[in-house]
């Protein structure tokens, strides 16, 4: 299962719900305002680090660049481009967008 989150973790609870309900071994791709969650020093950083024990965490590079956050990404988070986004979608049987 690929989970896709696009809302800021400090504005909505989409990420929190996703991490709570994602099963072990799933991939979580953060896009748009959700990418702030994988940056150092933020309130969601601890949640992301804990989640990496069971989940693969990805973030979309162009969205990090656009927000000036590329240099702040937490260790262990895999940054992908649009091609990588497509690969993640095609590699999995089901996608869930946490709108």
């Amino acid at each position, binding site marked *: 299962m690929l989970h896709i989150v696009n809302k800021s973790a400090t504005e909505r609870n989409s990420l929190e719900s996703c991490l709570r309900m994602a099963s072990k071994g799933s991939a979580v791709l953060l896009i748009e305002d959700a990418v702030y969650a994988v940056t150092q020093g933020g*309130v969601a950083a601890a949640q992301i680090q804990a989640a990496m024990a069971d989940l693969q965490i990805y973030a979309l590079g162009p969205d990090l660049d656009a927000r000036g956050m590329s240099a702040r990404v937490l260790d262990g988070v895999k940054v992908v481009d649009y091609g990588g986004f497509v690969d993640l979608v095609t590699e999995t049987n089901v996608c869930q967008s946490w709108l």
Partner: protein
Amino acid sequence: MSDMMDDMEGGEGVVKKFMFVNRKAPHGTIYALEGLEVVLVSAAFDQDVSMVFADDGVYELIKGMNTKGIEVKDFSKTYRALDGYDIEKLYVEKASMDARGLSEADLIVDVTVLDSAEMANLMAEQDVVISY
């Protein structure tokens, strides 16, 4: 009504304290850009304008944005032009910066950092508060 006409014609109208409160991250929604455009419009009316950045709004001021990959306008540089419009009162809430691991050095413009109580006092002084 006649007072209002005098104000408009004489250009010496009543000056009110306007506060624009920005609480949204840029790019993901249109609020940040729209809020900035309204502030620029307000500059034409010679009002006493303050801008506040709190919650995800502090992300609007981050240095080093490159929006090429998502094909949207990078309006962050416009914040640097605000002093050219006599909009020089920019305030950031400290708790919002702290929660995001950010400091003044990460911001594209000079701001005044206020604690939450100071922010409350500043809001209480305003005649008009507009929120984005």
